[in-house]
């Protein structure tokens, strides 16, 4: 095992990784921007290095500065967390070149899965069902038009260079195609440096179900069951849970075994997640693979009793996974709510500010992962996630009740939050029955 880990991230996930490092007795280094001086994550590490000014491009996204901080601080390994550089293959490669261990998959795997059309081709070749659509990036508008007519409307244009809902446009009729092609291409260019797009058939109101995967450097690949993540706003997940409710055993087994097969086919190492859309017949289609730890990994930890971050560090150090597939069981149910600094009165736009008061719940079956504390500044420069609330119960009903009570006990002053919205989701009949799909939030199912 290596001795010192630098965490190239901030907020709750940096703290989460430091906790795992402490379990293994590892020394820790935090990085921070000028906006994060004195932030909780900087105080929990054994050392903290200022890497640049507030804008992420000049600090948390600055590969050279972070690699330099790691080398000068005597780090052996770098954990990227999620977001920022976590799915940047150039960063993983820069770490390896500098003699650092990258806690994640290989640069080649990150690159292959980051190229969304290549990922579709690889998964189809491995026998994983994909959403019907194009397998190659589209050329000009004429070609797009031809492919669109083959696939049929409604369809969705997506960025080939990256995911997360950026550069996506739904097209319901041929007349809308030209405009959508231009807009989506421009957004893709700005976000991923390439305007390349591809087409997928648009599924009406599907569910988003994903599978947690883990591979080691000894040829073992296992899945840690599935998560239901359909409650989303602007393609960002808000509520997640495991196991996925109302999934037939056939679909559940089909999903998890297809995901494990796909990951094995590419020799995947470390933690990763394969995302699927599931339609109302229980058919499922590969959407994309996230080659990193997910925000919602905690619900999987709660139901499996396993520590994913500790295992990421062990696998990165070359240790073999200690689990056989048949040993990985789930117990009860776990739900996560993401509490964001958002203003419900302004269409859930971000709400920066200073946290004047922060009361967080605690107790049996309740876990809180927070990046902020009383007095923290919530800056315009970063993601609006304040904290994650995770409730576990012997049954889904118990987990739901615990979540509702936990949300009730949260008090946040100084910034607006989505707490009331989360309360309405958890109290809703549809959620209690587990009848969810990805369009519900936008359709207003949980409006006040």
């Amino acid at each position: 095992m290596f001795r010192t880990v630098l965490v190239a991230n901030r907020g709750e996930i940096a703290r989460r990784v430091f906790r795992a490092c402490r379990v293994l007795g590892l020394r820790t280094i935090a990085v921070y921007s000028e906006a994060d001086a004195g932030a909780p994550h900087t105080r929990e590490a054994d050392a903290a290095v200022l890497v640049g000014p507030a804008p992420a491009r000049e600090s948390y996204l600055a590969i050279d500065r972070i690699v330099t901080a790691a080398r000068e601080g005597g780090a052996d390994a770098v954990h990227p967390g999620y977001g920022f550089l976590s799915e940047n293959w150039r960063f993983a490669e820069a770490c390896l070149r500098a003699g650092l261990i990258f806690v994640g998959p290989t640069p080649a795997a990150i690159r292959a899965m980051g190229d969304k059309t290549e990922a579709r081709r690889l998964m189809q070749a491995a026998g994983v069902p994909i959403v019907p659509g194009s397998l190659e990036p589209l050329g000009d508008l004429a070609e797009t038009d031809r492919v669109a007519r083959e696939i049929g409307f409604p369809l969705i244009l997506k960025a080939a260079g990256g995911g997360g809902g950026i550069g996506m446009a739904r097209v319901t009729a041929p007349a809308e195609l030209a405009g959508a092609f231009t807009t989506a291409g421009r957004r893709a260019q700005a976000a991923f440096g390439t305007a390349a797009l591809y087409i997928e058939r648009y599924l009406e109101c599907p569910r988003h179900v994903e599978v947690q995967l883990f591979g080691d450097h000894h040829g073992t690949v296992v899945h840690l069951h599935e998560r239901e993540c359909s409650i989303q706003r602007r393609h960002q997940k808000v509520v997640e849970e495991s196991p996925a409710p109302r999934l037939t055993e056939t679909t559940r087994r089909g999903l998890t075994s297809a995901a494990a097969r796909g990951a094995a086919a590419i020799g995947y190492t470390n933690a990763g997640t394969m995302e699927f859309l599931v339609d109302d017949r229980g058919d499922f289609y590969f959407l994309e693979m996230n080659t990193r730890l997910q925000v919602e990994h905690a619900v999987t930890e709660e139901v499996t009793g396993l520590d994913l971050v500790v295992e990421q560090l062990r696998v990165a150090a070359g240790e073999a996974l200690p689990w056989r597939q048949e040993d990985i069981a789930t117990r009860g149910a776990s739900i996560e709510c993401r509490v964001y600094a958002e203003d419900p009165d302004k269409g859930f736009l971000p709400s920066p500010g200073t946290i004047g008061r922060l009361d967080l719940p605690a107790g049996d079956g309740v876990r809180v992962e927070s990046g902020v504390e009383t007095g923290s500044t919530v800056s315009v420069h970063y993601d609006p996630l304040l904290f994650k609330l995770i409730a576990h119960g012997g049954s889904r009903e118990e987990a739901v009740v615990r979540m509702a009570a936990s949300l009730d006990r949260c008090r946040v002053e100084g910034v607006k939050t989505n707490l009331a919205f989360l309360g309405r989701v958890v109290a809703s009949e549809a959620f209690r029955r587990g009848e969810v799909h990805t369009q519900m939030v936008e359709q207003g199912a949980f409006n006040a």
Partner: protein
Amino acid sequence: MPEEIKAHITGVVFQIAAKPGDSVAAGDPVIVLESMKMEIPVEAPRAGSVKEIRVKEGQTVQEGETIAVLE
């Protein structure tokens, strides 16, 4: 009658979408703010001609701050 366009949210100016002299329709983006990973357009409240842009790309603006003037 000149009219000031104010930012409805605190953020960093990501893009200037219109320049002085441009005519805009109601709802056209004048600038795009970036706040907490979201791009948020500040739109023209009515049709008119852009008289003045008061911000630069990369600048932080506060909620309520004037970002442009229409005439």
